[in-house]
């Protein structure tokens, strides 16, 4: 397919358990939903995609093979289940961290201020107005979740991986967050992979990576892509 954005071909992550994906393709702006029972290997798959576990096989993003690239070179944003925000930084600093390490903040004050204003605007969108300088320890679980999402998206990754992104959010904030992510997926050159409880939120995922029980040994977990 000429408009293949993400492709997994005989992709295997070798961690404490082995996770296999035989074949999965997705277009740009598409949403991939990972569905499997608890403890199946969803987190292992996510960590593999992020470049945090040893892996083999084909993983291509925009035609570029990523299998042997380090995490920092993969252009993937990850929202972890435990947020993993940086406690030594404020909320705002966490949000713009991805751009900061890429030198995108630059040295000129105008550019830096403009980008920081943009980050603040995004925080406002998700109901985090006046929380810019708050230390992470002072944020609620829901606030941290939103900061984590902003941190992963603000620097515009090509692949956005979400591990339980709506956990800890009340319905109103969940809606806002989902709208934000939907807009992000629709407007940016990105593909979104999401692990969430299926009934947590109604999602129109283009692809579903389903964990299946196969004849493989117990430490091997297989995911199969289908279109729901």
């Amino acid at each position, binding site marked *: 397919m000429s408009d293949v954005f993400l492709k997994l071909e005989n992709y295997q992550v070798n961690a404490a358990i082995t996770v296999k994906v035989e074949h999965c393709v997705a277009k740009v702006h598409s949403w991939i939903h990972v569905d499997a029972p608890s403890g199946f290997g969803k987190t292992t798959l996510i960590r593999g995609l*992020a470049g945090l576990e040893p892996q083999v096989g084909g993983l291509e993003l925009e035609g570029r093979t990523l299998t042997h690239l*380090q995490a*920092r070179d993969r*252009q993937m*944003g990850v929202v*972890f289940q435990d947020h993993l925000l940086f406690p030594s930084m404020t909320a705002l600093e966490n949000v713009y961290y991805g751009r900061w390490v890429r030198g995108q903040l630059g040295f000129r004050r105008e550019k830096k201020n403009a980008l920081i204003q943009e980050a603040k605007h995004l925080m406002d969108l998700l109901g985090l107005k006046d929380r810019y300088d708050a230390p992470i320890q002072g944020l609620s679980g829901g606030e941290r979740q939103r900061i984590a999402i902003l941190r992963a998206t603000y*620097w515009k990754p090509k692949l956005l991986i979400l591990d339980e992104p709506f956990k800890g959010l009340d319905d109103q904030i969940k809606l806002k967050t989902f709208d934000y992510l939907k807009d992000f997926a629709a407007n940016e050159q990105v593909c979104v992979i999401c692990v969430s409880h299926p009934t947590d939120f109604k999602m129109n995922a283009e692809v579903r990576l389903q964990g299946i029980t196969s004849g493989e040994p117990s430490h091997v977990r297989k995911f199969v892509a289908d279109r729901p």
Partner: protein
Amino acid sequence: MHPGSARFWTRIVAAGSSVFLFGIPLFFWLKRCSENWTDFQFLKLVYSPFVLHLVMQTMGVAVQSGGVIFIAGLAMAFLIYSFKPRLRMAIRFLLSVFWLLPSLFFVWLTRGLLKQAGLEQWLYRFSAVQVCWVIGFTPYFALGVLRILEDLDPREIEAAKTLGASASWIGRTLYWRAIRPGVGVLSIQIFWLIFTSFSVVVLLGGGSPQDTLETAIYQAVRFDEVRVDHAFALAIWQVVLLLGLTQIQKLGCSRVNQMQPIHGAVWGTLPVKRKGIFQGILIIISGLGVAMMAKIFLSEPAGGPLFQSWLQSCFLAAGVSGLTLILAFVFYFGLRRFSDWGAYCSPMILSLMVWEAYGAASFPILLCLVVQVALFLPWVSRNLYPLLDRKRIAEQEAARTLGATNLKAWLTVEWPRVLPEVKKIAVWISVFSMAEVSSVILFSRGQFEPLAVWSQNQFARFQWQEGYLGVEILVLTTLIGVAVSVYQESA
């Protein structure tokens, strides 16, 4: 706060202890000094050429050594952090025990190393003193930094990698930010250790003009005339310098980064695969240690008096360690912010202050107890409070919903978690108490002759062998104490 409530009483006790340990001695000290204060004479002492010269000299060597300790300590911490967990724990354990050894050991080690390296010309100069400080204090610094690094969630590092951070960015934005406040506090503690360093300076420094504030205080209060005002003028500078450095350190940390730093030097858990064999080794070490000590105690003619001195030191150490821990808890729950009083005071000045206040009214061993409690309390609180701060509030609340009182909930949830560390700190304090010289030297008289002073008296009468036996007993006691503590923990 309800009068008669637990918190009320704890505050009363904490306040009373502060007054007893620091307030009254300081008052009597000031009273004694003021006898000689006429026409701003005292101010002239504080700004006399000798004192200013000493201040510059002490700061100079402290900053030089502090800088090396800072760099070496950071490097050591990161190096150990890069090792696999088991190896890391083993190295941490060994470094913690290494740091417990008496300063005479470090003097001997430094002398040996410098000779081996062909650097004899450094001996009896500040160079040798600084080398000894670096050898002796770098492990403490490294252990503190290591604890902070180990508290970092490695997944945060992974998260930073996914955001595109290179190793240098991670170092700058995550590691450095995490350790910066702790490094500041550790640096202040290193400066305190350097400022109050005595044996190392006198044994390796070569004497005058290689003087520091601490040796000058010693010279002011020894010999035939106790020059109280001279000692005080010097001590003021010590306190001012340390307080000044502390304020600078606090200003250097942003509001976000004012985290509770470090509890580092007490030894960590040793990774053990075969528990039975490990415990067996500990029993053998303890047994051998006890056998060697028994042999020394049973030898003639020094054995008997040495045993008596050792017993006195043990009683003192047990009393100091117990009372210090009790007061540390009292201050934690009562008057936490004042638990650092005395942190900036040299042991010799503390001894003098206590002697002024309580000298005539009490037994020497009790005076030593008071001085050492005042001396060790800030160190115990700095090692214990970060641990106490990590409260399991949810579990305590769960206990209270099940009918437990506040105290019962704390004892059920927190005490089992804190107890292993408390035991280690108790051994830690005991070992330091037994090796302490400055704080007991003024009070040793008559029947009270702690181990360090006993050894000194033997040396003073040509009884070298007997004198060295005292040092041997101290090292053996340290090893046995650590072995017993580790055995208990592994059980």
